[in-house]
Each structure stands twice: as structure tokens, then as C-alpha cells.
């Protein structure tokens, strides 16, 4: 089985690589179109600013490659900024267009209560199941309210609530913490940094890729 982690100079890919190795897969780090299109599963990692992420995807001609890949309905997972870029656009710094694979936009995490309105949201926090059930997804056999690790100031505001796989509460605001649309997944948290729970999510993704080959 071939898993490709997209390499476009945005953030820490080594942890992602190590997490896959830990669950028994040796992924390839690449920004080559052929390599990506021939993969059984693709990960789009990324931290930092939305515009910078999109700029680098464009620099490596990855926008069309990602669209071609996801059109095949093979499993794809964006993590943190990699999830946010799946949406139509972001309001971070200036309006920037995203990949447009998920309808909605990226907005600043609204905070209310003065004493707890810290941003970025850097914390372990709980994920909660909504309309879309977790069985047969990357969150299969993950307990309700499991703690995963977040570090972000922006969130995804989805048009279609059925694509919200989990939500998380911060400062009295409930935001979308993971996405599922067919075989496209997104995690606002970092599964590669979320201890044993995170490794199980990555293992679930690997299993989805395996089943998809059959």
C-alpha cells in the first residue's frame, strides 16, 4: 500500500511520517503529480498561515493534482491548515481562495468570555459526534469526548452540516473539529500529536485506504 504525505514546505512532516511508521506504514514524502495520483491514500499536512499554504500549493502545481486525486474518490486527509485549505476561502489576513473541495469558509475562532478568550487555541480538547456517525470513518472506535491536541486560531465554517464529523467546544463556541465528505477527511486537531488516540485515528485512515483497494 502506498501512502503519500504531500511535501510543500509547510510545517512539520516528520511527526506525521513517524506516526504512520508507528502504525506499520512507510509513507512517501512527495510533491510529484504521478506519485500522488498513484497513491492509495494521501495526507495534506500543514501549519501556519492560509495564504502561505495556498501559495506553496500553487508553487508546486499541487492544486490541480489534489483535485484530480480526490475526484478518484480515493481516501484523502487534510490536517490542521491542510483541512482548512479544503474549503472555498479564508478570511485570515486577506480573503484567499482555497481548494474548494468542501463548501464553506475559514473564519477566526470567535471568543466571548474575557478570562478565557485566549488565542491561539492551544490545548487538548474533546471531540463530539454530531449527525454523521463515526463507525466506518477515521473516528471508528474512538470514544466520545476523547481528548486530542489543537493549536489554531481559525476554524472551518461548513455550509453542509452533514459533512461535520465532530465538533469541539472552545470559549462557549462549538466549532467543526473534523470533516468527512465521501472519502475526503479533515482534522483541525493534530492526530500525529494526540497520543494513542491520535495513532488510532491514523490507523483508521490506513484501514480505510486498505479497504478501498479491495
Amino acid at each position, binding site marked *: 500500500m502506498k501512502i503519500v504525505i504531500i511535501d510543500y514546505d509547510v510545517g*512539520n512532516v516528520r511527526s506525521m511520517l513517524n506516526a504512520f511508521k508507528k502504525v506499520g506504514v512507510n509513507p512517501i514524502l512527495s510533491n510529484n503529480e504521478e506519485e500522488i495520483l498513484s497513491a492509495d491514500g494521501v495526507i495534506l499536512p500543514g501549519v501556519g*498561515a492560509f495564504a502561505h499554504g495556498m501559495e506553496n500549493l500553487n508553487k508546486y502545481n499541487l492544486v490541480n493534482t489534489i483535485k484530480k486525486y480526490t475526484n478518484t474518490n480515493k481516501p484523502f486527509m487534510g490536517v490542521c491548515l491542510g483541512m482548512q485549505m479544503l474549503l472555498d476561502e479564508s478570511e485570515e489576513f486577506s480573503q484567499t481562495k482555497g481548494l474548494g473541495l468542501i463548501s464553506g469558509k475559514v473564519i477566526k475562532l470567535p471568543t466571548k468570555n474575557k478570562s478565557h478568550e485566549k488565542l491561539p487555541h492551544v*490545548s*487538548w480538547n474533546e471531540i463530539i459526534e454530531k449527525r454523521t456517525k463515526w463507525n466506518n470513518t477515521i473516528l471508528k472506535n474512538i470514544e466520545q469526548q476523547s481528548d486530542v491536541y489543537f*493549536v489554531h486560531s481559525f476554524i472551518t465554517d461548513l455550509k453542509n452540516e452533514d459533512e461535520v464529523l465532530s465538533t469541539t467546544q472552545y470559549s462557549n463556541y462549538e466549532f467543526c473539529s473534523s470533516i468527512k465528505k465521501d472519502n475526503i477527511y479533515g482534522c483541525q486537531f493534530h492526530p500525529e500529536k494526540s497520543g494513542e488516540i491520535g495513532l488510532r485515528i491514523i490507523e483508521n485512515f490506513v484501514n480505510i485506504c486498505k479497504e478501498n483497494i479491495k
Partner: protein
Amino acid sequence: MNKIRVIARIDVKNEHVIKGIHLEGLRKVGNPNELAKKYYENSIDEIVLMDAVAAYYDRNSLSEIIQKACEEVFIPITVGGGIRKIEDIQIALNAGADKIAINTQSINTPEFITEATKIFGSQCIVSSIVAKKISDNKWEAYTDNGREPTGKDVVEWAKTVEKLGAGEIMLTSIDKEGTKKGFDIELNKAVSEAVSIPIISSGGMKNSDDALELLLNTNVDAIATASTLHYKLESISDIKQKLTLNGIKVRV
């Protein structure tokens, strides 16, 4: 309320974990990778690796330790000590670090923080502030692992680093560091009230009683301890249990 992070602080000198008092009189206490792995398995929330001597040798030598740690430790890792250039940050991130703590270089060149956050994002840049009390409710920022006074007021400096774009502050009290006499509550109160970015409080923790006193009286977001864990004064699960029983939310 946000979940409070319990962080293991591992100070490293020449491949050994070291621990001193007031950041001085350093003693070897173990192997950094063995300790990082052990604390991870015992459900620590995050690990801070500090090169204790890098700042005054002008180098950072943690790459191998970070690389090895990342193969077994799947929680956030912050790296600091001797970070002077953008390239130093890139090397530490490539080795597997998630966040970079910066002190000395930002005092010398405050714009370094802004430059670093523009490239790597605010979430990646932790301002390490080392504070020494000079009078009632007044602290001075120190550099070079607590050796050099800077003349900067800690609370003002904290506001400045927030404006410069730092995503977090790691606040270390030199007066309390290594003493196991509890956190400097007034210092943590003053800084956490002055800024709205997360604060990691470091220096002075012996056990969960100290953590509790800090967390019930201030608005900090994380506690970092070395002595408690290196000297096995209290287990991570006992610390977390004590906090939970007293209404402080933590990751279980």
C-alpha cells in the same frame, strides 16, 4: 474552562538531562530520550526540551535528540536554547519539533519574533521569558539561561512579545526554579493578566499542591515541571487526579 496542560521540562546539556537550582549548579539526572518516552507513556501532555548551555556557546545541538524523541513520542514537543537564526528554527522543525522557544535572540533583536512568526506561524513561536524578582510586583527579564540581566520589565516585555506575534509565553521564575518551593504566584498573576496569549508557567513546582495553588489563583494555561518528574516526587497521573478532584480540567 480550557484544559490545563501538564508539561515535562527536560533541560539538556551534552546529551544528558540536567537539573539545577535557580538554573545553576547543574546535575545529571538521566537520558533525555528515555525520560521523554517514559513521560509520554505516563500521559504527559507536552514536552519541552531546552538546551541549557546553548545560549552562551551560541549553538543548538538538540537535533539528534529531537529526531529520536519524535519516533516514540506523539505529543507536542517544544524546543529551545540557542535559537539565533531562522535557519536554527528550520533545523529544529525538520528534526520534528512543533514549537520553538526563543529568549536571548528576541531580547537582542525583538523583530526576530515577528520574522519567525511570519514564516512559521504564531502557533510555532513561544517566547521564553526568564524572570527575576527585583522588588514587590516587579521582575526583570534575564537571558542566556538566567545569567544576563536585560533591564527589561517582565510584564512590559510580555506585552511586547504578544504584539510582536508570539503564540505563547513560557514564563520561568529564576527565584523559584529548582527550589521545589512552589510557583511565583504574583509573577504568574501579573503576566497572565497583562496578555491574552497562553502562558506556560515554569519554575518551583514540587507537587500537585503547588500546581493547585497556581491554577486556583492565576489564569495560566499550562504548568511545566522538571523536579517533580525527574526526582519522582509525584506521578503524572496523581498530579492530574488531584487537579481534577479540585475542579481543574485536564486531559485524562
